[in-house]
């Protein structure tokens, strides 16, 4: 386990002492535009999001459903690159909010593994979520994240066997990302029962905070998940507010309102 503290690990200590779950909001960098992404994140934070997950848009996002795919496509058409991701990370950290980056592996490898970890640190980021990096392939990343003192967050899935869970969770620091269902990102009508049982299987193996993501889109669902998890991750629902808005002002209002509603949900 990591021997260093990050803004993220401190957040989970605080939310635990407040007897509630942390609310984590997701937005791809460069969406809806490189500049307006900052405004959307600002609205999230005003509404009560505790931490922000910034997506590095990628051309082949196999874990993402149509909402995030379309947002990533739009971001890539805007010309978003690594410098824009780190700039948004810095702007978010400067708001005093813990921030992490979510990225598929190839952009990290192309940027340079050590350099990527250090750039996260330099921008005030707490860590990186890597949805397609298996722990078996993570040797270089483990060293890089340890050297730069940032958290590495892996996903555990409902299909992850009991015998494999220890392997994945011992590689994690900051928190563990529990995928609520077998599938891709997107909004769902209800939270799968798999989520609760997955969280309890992980608890047997780790004391790290556990955040649940995939499919959480409203306050009722957030409330339900907050009953057993330490964090609730919401992505597609925020993006949909932006996609359905006619102006950036409307997008900010709708995102702020959703965040306010979700923030009530994570308070038990």
């Amino acid at each position, binding site marked *: 386990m990591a021997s260093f503290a990050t803004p993220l690990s401190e957040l989970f200590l605080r939310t635990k002492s407040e007897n509630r779950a942390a609310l984590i909001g997701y937005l791809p960098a460069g969406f809806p535009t490189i500049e307006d992404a900052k405004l959307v994140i600002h609205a999230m934070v005003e509404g009560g999001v505790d931490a922000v997950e910034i997506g590095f848009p990628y*051309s*082949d996002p*196999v874990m993402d459903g149509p909402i995030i795919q379309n947002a990533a496509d739009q971001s890539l058409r805007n010309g978003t690159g690594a410098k824009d991701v780190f700039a948004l990370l810095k702007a978010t950290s400067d708001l005093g909010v813990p921030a992490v980056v979510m990225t598929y*592996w190839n952009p*990290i490898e192309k940027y340079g593994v050590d350099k990527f970890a250090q750039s996260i640190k330099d921008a005030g980021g707490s860590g990186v979520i890597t949805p397609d990096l*298996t722990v078996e392939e993570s040797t270089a990343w483990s060293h890089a994240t340890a050297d730069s003192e940032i958290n590495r967050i892996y996903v555990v899935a409902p*299909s*992850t066997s009991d015998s494999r869970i220890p392997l994945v969770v011992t590689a994690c620091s900051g928190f563990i990302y529990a995928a609520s269902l*077998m599938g891709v990102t997107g909004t769902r009508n209800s939270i799968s029962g798999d989520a609760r049982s997955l969280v309890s299987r992980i608890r047997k193996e780790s004391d790290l905070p556990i955040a649940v993501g995939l499919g959480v889109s409203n306050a009722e669902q957030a409330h339900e998940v907050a009953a057993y998890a330490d964090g609730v991750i919401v992505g597609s629902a925020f993006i949909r507010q932006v996609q359905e808005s006619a102006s950036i002002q409307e997008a900010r209002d709708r995102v702020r309102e959703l965040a306010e509603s979700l923030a009530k949900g994570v308070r038990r």
Partner: protein
Amino acid sequence: MSVIHPLEESSIIGHFGPYGGRFVPEALIGALDQLAAAHLAAKSDPTFQAELTELHRTYTGRPSILTEAKRFSEFAGGARIFLKREDLNHTGSHKINNVLGQALLTKRMGKKRIIAETGAGQHGVASATAAALMGLECVVYMGEEDTKRQSLNVARMKLLGAEVVPVTQGSKTLKDAINEAMRDWVTNVETTHYLLGTVAGPHPFPEMVRDFHRIIGVEARAQMLEEVGRLPDAVLACIGGGSNAIGIFHPFLDDSQVQLIGFEAGGSGIASGKHAATISGGSPGVLHGTRTYVLQDENGQTVESHSISAGLDYPGVGPEHAYLHDIGRAQYRVINDDQAMEAFSIMSKSEGIIPAIETAHALAGAMIVGRELGPDSILLINLSGRGDKDVQTAAQYFGIPL
């Protein structure tokens, strides 16, 4: 040279030197482990091997014959040219070798549904065929662009009872069809097997698909010794993902006197940026679950590939090819659209064999290598598929009114 035998290395950890491995969502690890175990068990199970061999004998039409292309020879510097006729397999290409093997594994794993990606439609047709034969549900993902340029194969798949899903994301070609198949698999992994059609993707696919295609090289090597009395000087194949190439190369790996040469799709030429020559014009990276050569930009975003051949139009390549390239055991060269179409025409008119446009890249390569090695040389070419599906594209290219 002491070659680290890829076969041995990959069976332990799924790597070929620095390439291969698994870069996939955690949700798929269980299914990949199950598949690797099923493949390993089947490899040493005489019942499985006998069942597959019998299917190949009575359904695929194996062994495929060796044809000497005597008239084509004059266009290849007088070298003796032997064609391994995978075009004569049922469904018209080498793809059926892998599909029947994986379909049998699907049944063994107790799964009832297969999904597949397809570019030119050859793998989709082969998958739909195997699904019909074995009573499996079949969904084929195909880029919307490809459904247009290969409409005949879309109809074939539907006639065989498969559902064809046009993929409208990204570049709307093979790479996006693979993304969509992966998303389906992540969602339905308990009931579904992803019948990947090439030697790319996460472990165990590169190794397993190669094993099912090795029969091409095993047969061809024995046929050369029996019918010609010696091994060829060079073995040639076209490379998209690289399944037909690895199938014919692999049994020759230890024959160090035999050159192994793969021909990538150069499209309008590497300098134009519009090509699919991943090894010659790309760099190491990760795509679709494996580390290999990738066409990518400075941010690690996959760059769209271009080729007149839908089956070679892929911005990645099998990791074992990346490894064979780096250690120098195989060479990878580039054939552009115009060279391939010239060879397509020459093969059709000199031998009465209309090849797939994919295969025409290897034939164009033979016209160059034959001149380099001279009339005393012997070349073995994997004639990986027939060109019926390409008639429309070729007619358009040559200005033949339809």
